[in-house]
């Protein structure tokens, strides 16, 4: 047992942090940011070596993803990483050859089109469907940066009733992308309307329906969003602590008052517990451990709650200035809020935690009994 990262993983985190610190998060620098992260190896991390990647795992990505959250980097980076791992594990050889080197080099950005207006978070409720003429119709919402993506990994039901993933080319006829109005404009969420868009056989991930691949994508995406959320929470905690050290009221730094100090201590405890959840889930995901689903759901639900709470409390610690547009704490809160609802909100994941725990408990009791 070893619940720590190795030196190389810490070094990679430091490199990513230095790079992101130097890049301003402006939209004009966005392409440079993407190219720079590709150059550092972030986008090739999960791509197998035979496709020009580094062949590493979710554990190797965990600390870097936290940095992406800290720096409020594009959410589509996480989506692309989740897609890379899913294509590497479930794609046909031809699909891997076609997409993985492009992802690794930073030239292909991937969108995740899962959620729909009329469905909750259970993929069995999705209505987007592939018909017998091999065309797909449906309405997907909340796809980050869809208009900048060269590939949209789309969850759909097939005519045999099973679900799977489509490797959708957004430039094809029948695909209409339009921007949403959202709480966090920086995430650049888009709606994708699919109107009888034709699907070739090689545009079905793995060549046919695969609920395993869909489950993998959702868990991997949820894990990475959890990592971004806890990275964001860590950054906001740092901002609040720095402010509490400097801001003077009643002739003293406000951080010397227990009302503030204790709030910040609680925030720090929550962030550390969130890290424990996210790091463990990264291992469970990388190893496809028996408790993978539970670990990911714990991380997503818990880190989402922590990030929201830490943002709320940080605004409170700042007082009036915290509520201003100019200071920018609202950008973190907005990002935390939209990630909180992406790929499963806390209520959805908590219900899944109980279901998975009861299943495991039944299995364990059977083993003990036998």
């Amino acid at each position, binding site marked *: 047992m070893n*619940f*720590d990262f190795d030196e190389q993983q810490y070094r990679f985190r430091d490199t990513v942090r230095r790079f992101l610190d130097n890049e301003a998060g402006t939209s004009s620098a966005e392409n440079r940011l993407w190219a720079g992260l590709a150059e550092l190896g972030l986008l090739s991390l999960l791509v197998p070596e035979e496709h020009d990647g580094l062949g590493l795992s979710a554990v190797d990505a965990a600390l870097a993803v936290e940095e992406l959250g800290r720096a409020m980097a594009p959410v589509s980076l996480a989506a692309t990483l989740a897609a890379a791992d899913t294509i590497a594990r479930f794609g046909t050889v031809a699909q891997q050859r076609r997409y993985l080197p492009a992802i690794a080099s930073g030239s292909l950005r991937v969108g995740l089109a899962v959620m729909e207006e009329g469905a909750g978070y259970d993929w069995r409720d999705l209505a987007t469907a592939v018909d017998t003429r091999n065309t797909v119709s449906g309405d997907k919402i909340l796809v980050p940066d869809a208009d900048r993506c060269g590939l949209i990994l789309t969850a759909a039901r097939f005519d045999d009733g099973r679900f799977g993933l489509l490797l959708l080319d957004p430039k094809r006829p029948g695909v209409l992308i339009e921007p949403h109005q959202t709480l966090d404009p920086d995430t650049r969420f888009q709606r994708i309307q699919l109107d009888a868009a034709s699907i070739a056989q090689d545009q079905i991930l793995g060549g046919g329906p695969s609920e395993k691949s869909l489950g993998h994508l959702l868990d991997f995406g949820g894990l990475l969003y959890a990592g971004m959320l806890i990275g964001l929470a860590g950054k906001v905690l740092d901002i609040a602590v720095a402010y509490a050290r400097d801001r003077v009221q009643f002739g003293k*730094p406000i951080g*010397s008052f227990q009302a503030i100090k204790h709030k910040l*201590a609680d925030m*720090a405890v929550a962030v550390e517990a969130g890290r*424990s959840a996210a790091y463990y889930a990264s291992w469970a995901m990388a190893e496809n451990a028996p408790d993978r689903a539970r670990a990911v759901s714990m991380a997503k639900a818990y880190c989402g709650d922590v990030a929201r709470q830490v943002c709320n409390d940080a605004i409170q610690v700042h007082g009036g200035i915290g509520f201003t547009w100019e200071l920018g704490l609202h950008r973190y809160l907005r990002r935390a809020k939209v990630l909180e609802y992406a790929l499963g909100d806390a209520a959805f994941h908590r219900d899944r935690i*109980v279901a998975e*725990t009861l299943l495991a408990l039944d299995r364990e009791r059977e083993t003990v009994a036998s």
Partner: protein
Amino acid sequence: MDFRDSPSELAFRTELRRWLAEALPQGWGETVFEPQDEDERARFRLDWDRKLHAGGWAGIYWPKAYGGRGATLVESAIFAEEMARARAPDGLNIIGRNLVGTTLLHHGTEAQRQRYLPKILSAEEVWCQGFSEPGAGSDLASVRCRAELHGNHFVVNGQKVWTSFAQYSQWCIALVRTDPGAPKHKGLSFLLIDMKSPGITIRPLRQISGECEFNETFFDDVQVPVENIVGELNGGWQIAMTTLAYERGPEDALGRQIRFKQELDQLLVALSGLRRGKGRVVDDPVLRQRLALAITEIELMRLNCLRTFSKYLNGGQRGPDASLIKLFWSHAAQRFYDTAVEALGPLAPLTAGDRASVAAGRFQLSYLQSRAFTIYSGASEIQRNIIGERMLALPR
């Protein structure tokens, strides 16, 4: 990062699992439980301590020279997992192992280690902790219990309070004032006191749970040989801080997590079998949300400890992370027992002895006990000060 057992870890786990299957009474955790009576329970737990020792499972990460197993914190983490899985009982000599032993390993003389450590592990000598006083709670450095040096012994006078297990203990670690003229942190010493010494009186204190685990302890001209000091004269504060770091630390927390995990599993099993109105209680969507938080937080207690173990094993220093671990588990456990009792609905008021009580009233008892979690080993307010000042570098 790797949570799989190495071959030697797996061998450890397998051996322990086999041993537990033999050592626990037939039907343990299903039909056979701990005695309800407090004194009988204490004897039962002492027997369990001794059984663990006889089996070679006491002091897993302690050096072999002092009767330990000479393994690492990893094995002690595996130990905790297997104890939870087997629903093994708690021991009695928790203070001896977690507080006294670890403190002596850091600060004791070789003679003290040789003398005390093996008997802690064998549970021949049970220990209690004399730190708090009526006038020294969160402000521990203001202890007034006085120890005056007369030739080759100290004479101790004063009172300690919240002395858990004093009634079962042969020895006590005590923080006493040896220099009343010095600044308050600099006039304290750390003594090992034989509970059989003339002049010690123990008075039980009934807690809100109805139990009398802790006591008031009075010292009236109690003679303590001078060699029973740990560290320097007037250097006791630093020693006590080591004790507290272990009392709040991951080893202690992981031991507690075993019990929370056992009771969580027990609750889930009970709620799966319990029907209310048209369905199973465990299917109530509102309750499930709260259960999920309990499941998550009890797992995070474990993961927080494992992360800290790995940090120590990889060369990291002990620091304010102990406060972080304690603040997390204590509040999370309280939330869990809130949920556990609430889950019982109309049966929630029924306690041990009532024929309709769930799990023999265990959750209600634990709920009451849990109120102390955020007070002992340093109240949450103290932990937050420590985290705020030492971890976040906020001004005092």
